[in-house]
């Protein structure tokens, strides 16, 4: 028995050779193919959100290949990798796919945890990370985070827009003074990120912010909602995910809190969150990334070029046009446009490297005319990124569940950057200091 250690080391070698065999170096793809890695979660507690999201991302790529034959003739190839919302699985996916097929064009990690882990690796590997709608929020500062792109809004801008809509419903920003708002959040970095912004807003507008964490996965929330019943906040901002969302709405019903006074973040604002609740959730509000609850020409194209040819990723056509699926399409549209932009600089009709994709992301300029052309005219507002601004735009609308489907119930809002910018700056500065990064000078670029 005393020779166990020897075998341990031998076992290591066996494992090593096995792994060598498995991961025979990925063959560089032909020049006419652009590789897109897709990190998804189709299992685990967030699967109901992850599945349509992943399908939307896939469907858009299929549609581009089918309708346009790729980008200027460059076909898109892709591979899904399941993360189960798990950081180490996500890191494995990232490491595996970053060099595949001539380099993973960009990573949309779909998870706050994976983003944090990958964000530090990306600059070394020269791979851009796009985190549409989740952040981290301070990575909007492109001078400190050259490789991160929280396009179309972050949790901080979302917080501001939700508060704007609440203020509007109450009849003006000044009405917020002295009132109480509650943040019910998933107890994780995902749920904690908006706190900074909401606290800043509370200071500015003079409302009181109640913080109520819900332990993941959020299946038991009675005490949270009893506290809400006792403290009677004017509105509840719900930073939920997965099963926590329907549970919150059910508990709201059980404690008699009006659903009209709940505002969910976009990840808590998909059909899967409320469909089963039906009339119970009637009146529940959520913020949508841009106008993702509407139906646009892009959806028709997906149905025509993908689903009519039985290539659809979702089980049923009905999923096309749902909020989560549309978000997936938007993400992929931005990806495709970033690659197109990069091609315009580095050579049309040629596959671009991840580094070139980064340039594309940083010089994205999608005008309203272009959006109309792409079929996203009513789903989005123009996006323009720059070295300093990696977010591009922060437009959003509020959607409301009518018992049967989501309706867009507000006009377009844009986040008040006078509140958000200082927070971004402070966060980015702290990060730069911790990591010893010298920020780029954007005025020179």
């Amino acid at each position: 028995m005393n020779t166990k250690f020897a075998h341990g080391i031998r076992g290591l070698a066996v494992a090593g050779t096995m792994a060598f065999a498995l991961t025979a170096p990925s063959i560089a793809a032909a020049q006419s193919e652009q590789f897109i890695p897709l990190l998804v979660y189709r299992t685990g507690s967030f699967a109901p959100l992850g599945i349509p999201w992943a399908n939307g991302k896939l469907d858009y790529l299929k549609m581009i290949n089918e309708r346009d034959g790729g980008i200027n003739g460059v076909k898109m190839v892709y591979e899904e990798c399941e993360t189960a919302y798990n950081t180490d699985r996500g890191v494995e996916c990232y490491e595996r796919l970053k060099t595949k097929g001539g380099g993973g064009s960009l990573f949309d990690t779909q998870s706050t945890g994976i983003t944090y882990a990958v964000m530090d690796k990306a600059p070394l590997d020269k791979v851009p990370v796009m985190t549409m709608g989740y952040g981290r929020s301070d990575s909007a500062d492109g001078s400190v985070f050259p490789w991160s792109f929280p396009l179309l809004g972050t949790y901080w801008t979302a917080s501001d827009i939700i508060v704007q809509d609440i203020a509007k419903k109450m009849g003006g920003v000044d009405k917020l003074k002295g009132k109480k708002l509650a943040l019910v959040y998933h107890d994780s970095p995902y749920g904690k990120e908006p706190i900074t912004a909401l606290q800043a807003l509370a200071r500015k507008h003079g409302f009181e912010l109640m913080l109520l964490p819900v332990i993941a996965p959020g299946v038991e929330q009675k005490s949270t909602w009893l506290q809400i019943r006792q403290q009677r906040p004017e509105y509840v901002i719900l930073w939920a995910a997965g099963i926590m969302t329907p549970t919150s709405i059910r508990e709201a019903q059980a404690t008699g809190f009006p659903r009209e006074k709940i505002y969910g973040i976009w990840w808590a604002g998909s059909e899967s969150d409320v469909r089963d609740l039906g009339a119970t959730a009637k009146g529940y509000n959520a913020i949508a990334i841009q106008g993702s609850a509407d139906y646009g020409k892009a959806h028709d194209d997906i149905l025509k070029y993908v689903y009519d040819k039985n290539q659809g990723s979702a089980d049923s056509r009905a999923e096309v046009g749902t909020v989560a699926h549309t978000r997936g399409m938007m993400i992929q549209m931005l990806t495709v446009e970033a690659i197109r932009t990069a091609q315009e600089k580095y050579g049309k009709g040629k596959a671009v490297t991840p580094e070139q994709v980064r340039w594309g992301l940083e010089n994205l300029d999608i005008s309203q005319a272009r959006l109309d052309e792409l079929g996203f005219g009513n789903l989005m507002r123009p996006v323009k990124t720059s070295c300093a601004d990696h977010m591009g735009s922060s437009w959003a609308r509020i959607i409301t569940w009518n018992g049967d489907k989501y309706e867009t119930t507000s006009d377009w809002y844009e986040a008040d950057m006078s509140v958000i910018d200082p927070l971004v700056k402070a966060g980015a500065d702290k990060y730069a200091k911790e990591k010893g990064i010298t920020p780029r000078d954007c005025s020179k670029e």
Partner: protein
Amino acid sequence: MFYRENGQFKASYVEDLRIFKVTQDRVAVLALVAIAVLLVPMLASDYLLRAVLIPFLILSLAAIGLNILVGYCGQISLGTGAFMAVGAYAAWNIGVRIPEVPLLVQILLGGLCATAVGVVFGIPSLRLRGLYLAVSTLAAQFFLDWAFLRIPALTNHSASGSVSVGTLSFFGLPLESAWQKYLFCLGFVVVFAVIAKNLVRTTTGRQWMAIRDMDIAAGVIGIRPAYAKLTAFAVSSFIVGVSGALWGFMHLGAWEPLAFSLDRSFQLLFMIIIGGLGSIVGSFFGAAFIVLLPIVLTNVPALFGLPLSVDTAVHLEHIIFGSLIVIFLIAEPHGLARLWSIGREKLRLWPFPY
């Protein structure tokens, strides 16, 4: 034929007490360490190092730590993930607050903090056994998960509660590329594996095993259960804490408490069951198995032109893990380590098995 020990006589007690009694073993081990140190960093791809070998090494280390507690001392623990978290957060805090402390010391101090926490949560083991103890370690898991989320001082007031490490160096040498990190982890694993292997052969180690086999009987023959159990908790938590710090610093780079959740605790427990309870080498086998299985499941079907959809692969992985646990418990409670030693016995006699 080649693995014969005829003619190798033990002429002194020192020789009799060697870890590797057979010359071939010694040669093989040295060759392996040499390959691991010299050849692997040169040949292995970036992916292999970063996504397979580094996690494998770190998880083996954690499994060794857990094996000391569960396999050698018989105290079941479902809070391993939390003790890893203590190591990681403590090391990180030391690094942030006192940047002058070298990385090696940071990690070892992280381990020491985990030791302290481990001993505190080990105290119930003096009164509770088996299942009830498992529940008390679950309490540790949930409490520590909460603490790292809720106490801002522990994450240096980071807005989201995630922490990330800066650039790393080891006494002036950079720790940036995959092979540097790999070698750093390898060093830890080799050193701790040797220490653990030797530790279980000492008085303390034998006391642990006596407690495991029957604590009342061990008490009767004069072993102090309190001392034995708490030392097991201490040593185990130290190693687990160090591995946690390595997991955070070397593998993830940035993490949130979710990285050290209850799932991690279960995963480590599975490693030592599959690898072999009460076996240092088994910890390596178990870690290799658990790290490789998902990768095999995603890649191998594709090689044969049968692409498994990603969600099926994960569900399949769950089913395979679960079934294997049951199969091992039924058919081979000593795990892969036992299979290995059976193979070795066969090899000694081969090709003349009589």
